[in-house]
């Protein structure tokens, strides 16, 4: 199992060092610094073996986290644990930076003592940890909002509740993609979201203590009993990143959508939830039984009226009963309180590619290149894509660039070796074009320019996979609120993952 865990700053100075096993000595700390952090060449592997000691590392901004072992440990588990450690730290004190780690080192030691015992990971759910970890996180001075660290989706959520969430949502996406399940709730969010989710004082009574321990070790380790909200509310975000690799001729070499369903729940008690989407397998099954198809009617966003989608694979948060999904393909769970990722999924069939990039590169002699790029938006005209950015790589020996574009702004960035073309908004079924003349310095470098692909970034208010949320039902038998009383919100955001066209 994990023998020790070290955190270093970018210089290789140790900020945190916790050793769990006798076979890991202080020299291991130095071995990693010398061989990995201070190594001259690029890191060639996230797992390094130095003198029969294995080091696993991940990097967050300029902080290195390294787990050390001398045994044949489960490598996947070690990395999952390191990510989890980052999540827990982020939940406690925001960004993982040298300053924040120094500010919270006592907390980190307490956490490390609790979530790793003799190198075996224990319960690491922040919600549960907060009930019995004595230290509280200290956030940096300019740390107002949390940013979930996951790189593919930069999704801003506030630390304390619904209000800024809604505001940002209203700013970001058109209203009509944003619909409610429950009959006619106002768009006005509740000002009464209770804030008892903040960590509790150290428990005193015996009942409290045993409640904590049974919760931390129990079947529902991610939620504690006795949560109360005056107003029960939940938010669902379908966040997709669409990935594409296209040949210069417009042939799709590979395309897939990786999506996440992120849920923020503010529900009282221990609610039993059931989540439904337009999963092809489920719809087909129901179709046979003659049930009416709700998914077709509620098609509000999206570019096509697809009724169901084929999901290649999905994974769930540990709250979801996997055996039930395996047998009945129904998604039922008792959610954690607050924000968490309910599921991840991947689709490869019938993806709506929001943009098509048509490149044209012509080499005029040895010192000039002509580049023309057309982008076409391929979704309903009523929808607006935002934050569009096209990145056209230029050769290293570029001496000057002239750009003309119909829409937006384009600039040659010498430091990045690329022309960056930005468009704020673009409606569906439109087309825009940029042309550039690139002048090159003559070189005697024999190696041809590698022509990196043209990449694109954007954000669209629908799910490129075609996924639709059909329902999210909430049952709490012990308390006096029903599914109808819960206010539910859903929105869809599609973003570019790695969206590249070769030229």
């Amino acid at each position, binding site marked *: 199992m994990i023998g020790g865990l070290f955190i270093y700053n970018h210089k290789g100075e140790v900020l945190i060092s916790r050793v769990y096993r*006798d076979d890991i000595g202080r020299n291991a700390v130095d071995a990693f610094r010398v061989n990995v952090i201070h190594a001259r060449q690029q890191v060639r592997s996230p797992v390094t073996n130095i003198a029969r000691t294995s080091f696993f590392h991940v990097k967050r901004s300029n902080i290195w986290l390294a787990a050390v072992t001398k045994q044949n440990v489960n490598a996947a588990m070690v990395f999952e644990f390191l990510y989890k450690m980052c999540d827990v730290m982020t939940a406690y004190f925001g960004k993982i930076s040298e300053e924040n780690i120094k500010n919270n080192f006592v907390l980190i030691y307490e956490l490390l003592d609790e979530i790793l015992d003799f190198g075996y990971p224990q319960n690491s759910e922040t919600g549960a940890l907060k009930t019995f970890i004595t230290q509280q996180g200290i956030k940096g001075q300019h740390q107002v909002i949390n940013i979930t660290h996951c790189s593919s989706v930069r999704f801003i959520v506030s630390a304390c509740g619904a209000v800024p969430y809604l505001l940002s949502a209203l700013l970001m996406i058109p209203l009509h993609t944003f619909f409610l399940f429950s009959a006619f709730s106002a768009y006005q969010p509740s000002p009464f979201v209770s804030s008892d989710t903040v960590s509790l004082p150290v428990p005193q009574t015996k009942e409290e203590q045993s409640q904590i321990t049974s919760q931390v070790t129990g079947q529902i380790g991610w939620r504690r009993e006795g949560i109360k909200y005056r107003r029960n509310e939940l938010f669902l975000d379908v966040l997709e990143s669409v990935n594409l690799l296209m040949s210069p001729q417009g042939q799709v070499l*590979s395309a897939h959508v990786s999506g996440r369903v992120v849920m923020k729940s503010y529900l009282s008690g221990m609610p039993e939830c059931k989540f439904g989407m337009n999963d092809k397998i489920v719809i087909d099954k129901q179709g046979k039984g003659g049930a009416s198809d709700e998914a077709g009617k509620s098609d509000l966003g999206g570019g096509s009226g697809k009724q169901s989608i084929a999901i290649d694979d999905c994974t769930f948060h540990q709250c979801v009963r996997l055996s039930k999904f*395996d047998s009945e393909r129904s998604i039922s769970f008792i959610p954690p309180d607050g924000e968490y990722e309910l599921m991840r999924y991947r689709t490869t069939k019938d993806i709506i590619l929001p943009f098509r990039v048509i490149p044209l590169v012509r080499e005029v002699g040895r010192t000039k290149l002509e580049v023309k790029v057309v982008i076409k938006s391929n979704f309903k005209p009523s929808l607006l894509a935002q934050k569009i950015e096209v990145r056209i790589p230029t050769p290293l020996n570029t001496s000057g660039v002239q750009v003309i574009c119909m829409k937006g702004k384009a600039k040659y960035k010498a430091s990045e070796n690329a022309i960056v073309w930005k468009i704020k908004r673009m409606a569906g079924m439109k087309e825009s074009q940029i042309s550039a003349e690139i002048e090159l310095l003559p070189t005697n470098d024999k190696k041809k320019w590698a022509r990196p692909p043209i990449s694109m970034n954007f954000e669209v208010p629908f799910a490129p996979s075609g996924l639709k949320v059909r329902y999210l039902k909430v049952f709490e038998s012990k308390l006096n609120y029903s599914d109808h009383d819960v206010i539910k919100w859903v929105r869809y955001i599609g973003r570019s993952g790695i969206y590249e066209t070769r030229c």
Partner: protein
Amino acid sequence: MTDSKYFTTTKKGEIFELKAELNSDKKEKKKEAVKKVIASMTVGKDVSALFPDVVNCMQTDNLELKKLVYLYLMNYAKSQPDMAIMAVNTFVKDCEDPNPLIRALAVRTMGCIRVDKITEYLCEPLRKCLKDEDPYVRKTAAVCVAKLHDINAQLVEDQGFLDTLKDLISDSNPMVVANAVAALSEIAESHPNSNLLDLNPQTINKLLTALNECTEWGQIFILDCLANYTPRDDRESQSICERVTPRLSHANSAVVLSAVKVLMKFMEMLPKDLDYYGTLLKKLAPPLVTLLSAEPELQYVALRNINLIVQRRPEILKHEMKVFFVKYNDPIYVKLEKLDIMIRLASQANIAQVLAELKEYATEVDVDFVRKAVRAIGRCAIKVEQSAERCVSTLLDLIQTKVNYVVQEAIVVIKDIFRKYPNKYESVIATLCENLDSLDEPEARAAMIWIVGEYAERIDNADELLESFLEGFHDESTQVQLQLLTAIVKLFLKKPTETQELVQQVLSLATQDSDNPDLRDRGYIYWRLLSTDPVAAKEVVLAEKPLISEETDLIEPTLLEELICHIGTLASVYHKPPSAFVEGSRGVQHKRLPGSAGSGESVDSPDTGSAAGVSEAPPAVIPSQGDLLGDLLNLDLTPPTATGPPPAPSSGMQMGAMDLLGGGLDSLLGGDLGGSPAMGAGFGAPAAAMPASFSAPVSGGLDDLFDLGGGVGMPMGAYSPPKTVWLPAMKAKGLEISGTFARRAGVIQMEMTLTNKAMSVMTDFAIQFNRNSFGLAPAGPLQVLTPLSPNQSIEVALPLSTVGPVMKMEPLSNLQVAVKNNIDVFYFSCQYPISMLFVEDGKMERQVFLATWKDIPNDNESQFQIKDCHLSSDAASNKLQGSNVFTIAKRTVEGQDMLYQSMKLTNGIWVLAELRVQAGNPNYTVSLKCRAPEVSQCVFQSYEAMLKN
């Protein structure tokens, strides 16, 4: 208020100040002070002086302060064991605290304090905590048993904690079950034979129930433990698989990979015609693909595992080629791994896409990646015949880029393509020759030279080209020199008239001016061959070469099976068995896949046979000896001539055959014949051992050579134990084998007496070794030429090489042997004296000896007594010298002779020794120091044997 301020106190009187603060009355101040102490501890400052003061703060109701003090204790208790005892009372008291959090904290921390005195006091509280009413305390106590076992295994057994731990597997709380499983698995690893984790259908059922309820980490512990179970039949196997498959949808990749491991293992037992088998195969692909959208580090782990999975079961991912396409922004380690898998999945169906991708990659920036991509194109050509033409033209395009490393890599792979498709693509030779000057890497130069030599008749200026290489002959690497030698001989045989001078030049360069024995030997062989029988020479050197096989870089099947059992772990990331990187007894256990069950129905279907893996013939691989010598059980025993070094491609010349010749021939030629190229009697035959054709009858001559070598070499007086019976006739249907080992003239020999005590004649003898600690392997076939009639005995000397596959054995010098004859295959194991492995150049320089002695940590030193030995120190020294134990220095202190000695094992491990001999005292003391301390025991035994002999 933040904690970072604690890092900034660097004043001189710091310790004093802290002391005062720690003894303050105010709780807040104390807390602050402890925090400062911990900050200093983190940055490596020594604050152990504050131990008593910190311990004083321990008695408090404040949980926060208590946790801080415990943290300190864990760090320093070991350095201050006497002081640590002060804390015991508080610990014991805390283990009784009404608050379960404190009880658990106390028992957890106590387990982390590795002080013997404390462990004594730990037993009682631990016993109580294991039966605590609170699950949090129980789950902590379960792990604590593993901690205690690590400190004092005996204590844990004596106190009966193992039984209590086993009981916890039936606990009502899933997390307690998971931790108990984790602790038991760890303890079981260090007792490979104990039946500690007694997995039976009932416990399995309990584990599977807990699997649905416990945390993600607990699920990993349980799945990893399940993977060690062997179901009784295919039905049980299927029902476990059914209950494990839902885990494939877990968000935690480690849960997914561990589930994959269980499924991959249990699938072996399912009959292939079962519907469920197909369903399972289909279910495995999507989660594996999903792993590729995880964070890059996990992708890397996943890819290394997928690499194993596609080798074992290529059908799972055969349609998923596209997901392994490299993305521009992938980290380099992900790119390289993806490339590997792409080649493994390449088939006729997808080759066009793959090639288009590879061509893209060949223009990237990272040199390693580009090289690998170019090499991959060559591998595609060899693997998918239909694509060969396109691959060659792609490679030619790449050569036109003139990027130095691309060109070199391309030439290396084109050479392999020529080997696979002779007489097809030779038209490109002209293009290759244009790039001769830009080649600066040995491998590329050697490949080019091979091409020129092989196709000398089609290249007009072949002699000029080769001559140009000859100018700097001595600066070339061995690989290139050997290749050049062979190429010029080929040229000579093809165009004898114009190249006589050239061939003489190269032969004299190789035989007279070179210090390299391989090169010299090969030079002589050619020389003799050419001067005695040019026709035979032609047959040998220009013999038709067998085609090379399709798949390269395959992992040897037994290793692959073992690695499949380790999916998700470090072993699967390194592609090495755990014994290769884990110290001590842990992980030395070898795991195997279960065989296919339901033999009734499976025998008829041809596919099932290969599912069992055991009957599957190891795929033919471009020779690298390690791959060919599989586990004994796996190989059909044929005379080693067939499994021994097969005809090597030119690039592999110095392997196998040459190694084998190395020792004997060298001493023979060097001693007897000097540098003269005169013919020796019976030297025609060994020349035939040229890699170009290594066939059965040849090896007879080879052995003569060894015998001769033994005779000519100086009698070294090396110690050789008397023969003992290894295989009694009772056990081997009348064949009795007794034997011993000896080192003669630098060659390790296994000397055996085979006696036929049966009624019938025995023929067709063959021998094979299992992997062993020092890679011993037969260097030639077993020489029993005439049939062994009843009651006849024969003495056989089998030369051994040390280039075979290596696996650590227990005991270290254990050797498992299989002998075959026309009756049956027999297995026995024997132990060889390690002194046999001491090589002739084991004498260390004095200075080096001194430095090395100091450099090796004292922990590695072990001391032994040799009793009843009546030799003087000089006599002992002489005796040991005979067995290649060299005395470097002698010192006499107060009538005691100290001999400093060194020896070197065949695998390069040095052992340093100090031998103390007191006049008149028959007891010697040997101190051994070695970087690999596990050999010490064996070396000592040899010392005793050598001295007393």
